[in-house]
């Protein structure tokens, strides 16, 4: 099994955290992982993108240029998703902010209202975690069953109170893509 995911959004949406938590969880589940953020002048509102691969085998190129799945967190990222998604791949769209679907009739488009679900749970900042739940359910690549211990080492102890909320967001994301 190899799942190559391209993640795109704007700075501040938690794209980097999403990618890191995805591979951290995958590693805990015994998979090989690579996470490569497109680094540069990072700033809130700027471009945030990452190549993320989880695999049961050794990972060759760490660059995702033909993605099995693409995460699109904002409208501006639709164009890159259209380019990077492989034929017949999956594009997960944050439908709270993305109002036009990627023009890829061959791809499976999955709508996840991440911001709306996150707001309902009480904090828009966990929209990325909603998306991670959806990505897990749709691809099956990472189960996220070790997420609680992953979050405990990922967050400093001052933020541990937020772990329950993050896990709830992941669960809601999974539910949002049922059926």
């Amino acid at each position, binding site marked *: 099994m190899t799942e190559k995911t391209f993640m795109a959004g704007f700075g501040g949406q938690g794209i980097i955290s999403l990618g*890191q938590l995805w*591979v*951290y969880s995958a*590693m805990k589940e015994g998979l*090989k*992982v*690579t*996470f*490569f*953020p497109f*680094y*540069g002048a990072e700033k809130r509102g700027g471009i945030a993108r990452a190549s993320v691969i989880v695999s049961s085998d050794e*990972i*060759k*190129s*760490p*660059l995702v*240029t*033909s993605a099995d799945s693409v995460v699109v967190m904002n409208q501006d990222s639709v164009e890159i998703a259209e380019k990077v998604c492989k034929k017949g791949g999956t594009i997960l769209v944050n439908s709270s902010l993305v109002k036009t679907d990627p023009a890829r009739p061959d791809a499976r488009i999955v709508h996840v209202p991440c911001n709306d679900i996150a707001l309902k749970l009480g904090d828009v900042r966990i929209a990325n975690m909603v998306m991670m739940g959806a990505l897990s359910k749709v691809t099956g690549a990472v189960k996220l069953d070790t997420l609680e211990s992953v979050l405990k080492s990922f967050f400093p102890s001052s933020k541990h109170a937020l772990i329950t909320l993050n896990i709830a967001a992941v669960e809601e994301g999974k539910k949002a893509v049922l059926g």
Partner: protein
Amino acid sequence: MAEEIRLMKGNEAIGEAAVRAGCRAYFGYPITPQNELTAYMAKHMLAKGRIFIQAESEIAAINMVYGASSTGARAMTSSSSPGVSLKQEGISYLCGADLPAVIVNVARAGPGLGGISPGQGDYFQATRGGGHGDYYTIVLAPKGVQEAADLTYEAFSISEKWRVPVLVLADGLIGQMMEGVVFPEPIDPATLPRKDWAVGHVTEMHRPYNHVTSLNLEPDGLEAANRIRFERYGHIKEELVRYEEIDVDDADIVFVAYGTSARVCHGALEMARAAGMKVGLFRPITLWPFPSARLAGLAERGKRFLCVEMSMGQMVEDVRLAVNGKVPVYFYGRCGGNIPSQEEVFAEVKRLMAL
């Protein structure tokens, strides 16, 4: 005791490996894309009561390495391409004084200030010494986070064994990428043997003082020192050459690539094999000494080579020297901070297969 697998950036993994290797002194100056390495050392060297100095410049940092190394301490600096250019004078001095040191270049795209995206355009500088005078440095090229940690850890002992600085040549992708990594056992620097060539400790060791310098105004003396050093280079070429081969035996075309490019080529190799093409990969791990003899052997067997680099073509010259006109050596490169995709490398090998 087996260490736990950790998820780390390449830059941080290099830092942790250096700390574990018993690095006593780190001197650095910030530059993207290697900043996490300097930051990691600031935190962890000071926490262990070792020396960390953010120098006023790259030039100061490499000269601090010279000073620390003269005392026999394991010393290190790191930077990225423009910063490594600034260090070249100091590296030449280290070589002239036969001092060990570990220098990490998390390379970016050049020339000049260039860009901050990954590049492999520093190959010539790395493998031809880089500064003035007759010398080489040992150059190790990791392909990912685990190997970056392993080679950095080993770089200290290799450098001490040969009294030649070791350059770890990574690139921005390896520095910024996160992968799983397992570290070797930590070494307590206090347990490392004293160097009989180092300055200091004269009274307690009951020996005459040492003089560490690269200056030698007497031509015969300087020539002799250079000849002794080149004899050592000869032994290094015999003992240290390292490379990795994948599916080379039955291959018609063999990729030659190091670091990030080799990872991309491995992806292209899988695509080619799936399409029934006999393609292999030869990955030099030591860029100096270069695995010339092995490449020459493969050329004798009629393999053609496709050299893939994130540059306009630098290592390809060493491949051509190695095969000495016996077989075609092709080149495919991207630069400016672009990383070739496995799809475009596959397209190139497909085109060459049809020739």
